[in-house]
């Protein structure tokens, strides 16, 4: 048989080379089509709010850009100071039973529709009516009884019950003013994807799970934005989001995992902005069951943990140890409240008094997607080991964790909880943590605590409320209902080429004054 070794070799060598070449070509010759447009700001966040209608969502992932599309009657700036928004002024009448708002004139929605008293009434009728019932927002605004149109630029809010936080609540989420005519034209489903507001940017396009594109609204009542457009990308995997900001694929990233702090600080193209935020992380204790029924055990657990060390190591200092479930910016914060000092000796002593044998096993439940809870839990486990408690870590899938573990009271001795009330008012956190029957509170039934919580809701007197909330914090501390761990800073990773960015504590971005130098 004749066998042409030579030609055989060349033939497949050609094929082999062709493969290498085509591989390289594929790798290098493809045009970089995603070259950034100079006048579009690129932002990334972890979640897609999935619905742009203000009354259909309650996620921070909507709040992060929502105030660029919509305005409320009240505006809150980057320093969380309240100022007039679509209302120029307001006054409390009849001891707060009625609130009168004077509305701004000459304001237009993105579709040209004028803003007036009818729009305000429509907004709140919708929120409190049938449509709002299907969404999560309504519950927050039920203190409003009805809205009455006085004239084209004046409305009265008739309060169904006192609500000392109502003005703050009017600066976000469900209270964003929406246009009645546009809504009637397109219907609620189209509004979910392409809503219209009065804000500095209008929605250009929204692709679920991919991105939201905003365009500058030139007729904005309060100046003109610097950028022509904004693209908000939704990138769920944290390490991917971090890869994007470090490679310059995006300009600003929210939802910075604490695990990436070091890498961001080392990166030359990125600056890490931090500001005290509302978010607190606590490990709650189960006072209804197990050994944590004993207050001495709860106190011992508190004393066994060195929070300062945890903040220093795991948060690289971007947080502050706390003594109650709130940060220093929260209304109701008490700087003088004592804290359980780190004292393993005393912790061991207390456990002995309570008759707990060394090596007793307890469990911590947490959400499997929270890296920080896992890390803190592991460190806490080693602190507890030192005082003779054997902590088992039990991760749960996110939606099971709330609906099956917390709501139904199926936690172990400890369970992780993170909360950041956007109102920066301890009422928001304390009520759901301690009031009997709240879904996030499966265990605590304490009449004294209920009374304290309810009393501060009945008054508009700021000082009285502050005292009331401080009393709640003190009581919770005395009972050692939780291990308050730390108040974590609101973190933003921002490209060094971005100008005019101000880090806000509430995870909301304001794009008005941000610009990009490429």
């Amino acid at each position, binding site marked *: *048989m*004749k*066998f*042409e070794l030579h*030609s*055989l070799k*060349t*033939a*497949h060598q050609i*094929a*082999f080379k062709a*493969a290498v070449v085509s*591989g390289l070509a*594929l*790798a*290098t010759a*493809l*045009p970089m089509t*995603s070259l950034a447009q100079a006048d579009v700001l690129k932002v990334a966040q972890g979640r897609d709010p*999935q*619905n742009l209608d203000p009354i259909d969502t*309650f996620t*921070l992932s909507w709040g992060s850009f929502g105030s660029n599309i919509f305005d409320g009657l009240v505006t809150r700036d980057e320093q969380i100071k309240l100022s007039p928004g679509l209302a120029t002024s307001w006054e409390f009448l009849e001891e707060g039973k009625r609130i009168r708002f004077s509305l701004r004139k000459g304001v237009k929605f993105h579709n040209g529709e004028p803003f007036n008293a009818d729009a305000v009434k429509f907004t709140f009728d919708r929120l409190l009516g049938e449509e709002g*019932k*299907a*969404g*999560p927002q*309504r*519950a*927050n605004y039920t203190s409003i009884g009805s809205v009455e149109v006085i004239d084209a630029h004046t409305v009265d809010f008739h309060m169904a019950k006192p609500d000392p936080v109502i003005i703050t609540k009017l600066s976000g989420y469900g209270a964003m003013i929406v246009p009645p005519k546009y809504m009637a034209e397109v219907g609620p489903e189209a509004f*979910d994807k392409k809503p219209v507001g009065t804000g500095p940017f209008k929605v250009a396009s929204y*692709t*679920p*799970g*991919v991105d939201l594109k905003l365009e500058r609204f030139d007729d904005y009542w309060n100046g003109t934005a610097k950028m022509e457009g904004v693209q908000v*990308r939704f*990138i*769920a*995997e944290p*390490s*991917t*989001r971090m*890869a*994007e900001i*470090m*490679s310059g*694929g995006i300009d600003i990233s929210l939802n910075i995992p604490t695990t990436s702090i070091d890498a961001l600080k080392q990166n030359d193209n990125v600056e890490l902005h931090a500001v005290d935020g509302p978010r607190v992380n606590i490990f709650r204790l189960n006072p209804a069951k197990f050994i944590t029924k004993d207050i001495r055990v709860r106190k011992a657990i508190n004393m066994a943990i060195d929070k300062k060390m945890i903040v220093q190591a795991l948060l690289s200092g971007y947080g502050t140890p706390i003594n109650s479930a709130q940060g220093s910016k929260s209304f109701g914060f008490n700087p003088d409240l004592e804290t359980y000092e780190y004292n393993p000796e005393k912790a061991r002593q207390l456990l002995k008094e309570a008759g707990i044998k060394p090596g007793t096993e307890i469990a911590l439940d947490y959400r499997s997607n929270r890296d920080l809870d896992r890390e803190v839990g592991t460190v806490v486990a080693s602190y507890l080991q030192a005082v003779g408690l054997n902590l088992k870590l039990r991760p749960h*899938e*996110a*939606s099971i964790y*709330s*609906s*099956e573990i917390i*709501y139904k009271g199926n936690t172990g001795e400890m369970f992780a909880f993170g909360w950041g009330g956007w109102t920066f008012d301890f009422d*928001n*956190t304390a*009520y*759901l943590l301690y009031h009997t029957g*709240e*879904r996030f509170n499966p265990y605590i039934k304490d009449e004294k605590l209920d009374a304290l919580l309810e009393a501060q809701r009945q008054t508009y007197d700021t000082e009285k409320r502050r005292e009331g909330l401080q009393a709640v914090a003190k009581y919770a501390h005395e009972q050692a209902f939780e291990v308050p761990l730390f108040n974590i800073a609101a973190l933003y990773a921002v490209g060094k080429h971005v100008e005019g960015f101000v880090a806000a504590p509430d995870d909301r971005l304001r794009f008005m004054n941000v610009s990009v130098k490429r």
Partner: protein
Amino acid sequence: MSIAAFFIRRVVQALFVLFIVTLFVAFLIRLTGDPASILAEEAASVTEADLERIRESLGLNKPFLVQYYEFIRGLLTLDLGQSFFRGAVGDLIAIALPSTLVLALSSMLVSIAISIPLGIHAAVHKGGIADQIIRVVSLLGLSFPNFWLGIMLVLLFAITIPLFPASGFSGASSIVMPAVTIGIILTATNVRLVRTTMLETLSSQYVMVARAKGLSERVVIYKHALRNAAIGIVTFLGLQFGNLIGGLVIVELVFNWPGMGTLAVEAIGQRDYPVLQAAISLLAVMIVFVNLVVDLVYGLIDPRIRVE
């Protein structure tokens, strides 16, 4: 069995499989978790009554079989219904499905472009050093966790040497890294497939005749042998499809690729029943369809298979 009877039987079997799969998934996903409380997760003061109202508006109060029936009816009338959180399911699929198909095809292409020449090279040099190197390298390709490979590629080619975008689906350059990640894993098996199939064909009488006719070796390999081996290779690629979809899920997550895997995983997390049911059913339809085609083609070529 006649071809028609065989055909009908396989289609009926495929429909049965799809029925069981959808029923199973629809049942499973409803076992735990509560979409209503997920919707209201970050709301502070929500009462049980509020949740009940939300559940009702999502249609969760109906009996399971009614919900399932409505889903199947929707499937048949091509109306996939509304997501609990994000509008029409059809719109979501319209974005996710093409993204996944683009990625799947590109990965296959990457893999074919590498494995055919490498496989032929190995077959022709059977037992030589090149063959052995190719063999070990292809085993190596099977030995990475794919998400890890993806993260390493991003680290190298998006951050350290910024050649490609780190994530997302924005133009041709963004396909390269995810396609290579999946492609490498597919390549490992494909190289060996090409090698074995080529070895068999090269030693077949058919090729011997071609050689005896005095055709050049290039023509023998690329025109006669490769074409003959192609049937086997294509069939196997078809059978790989299910694996490919599985591998896609994780790689899509790593590269934030807006495909069916990402969609399904998010839907599981949120207990978004309509989206998950639609996504898994569609993937199952695709897999079953590809298998069915492979089966039918085989049945046509080789009548013995029809008996089984």
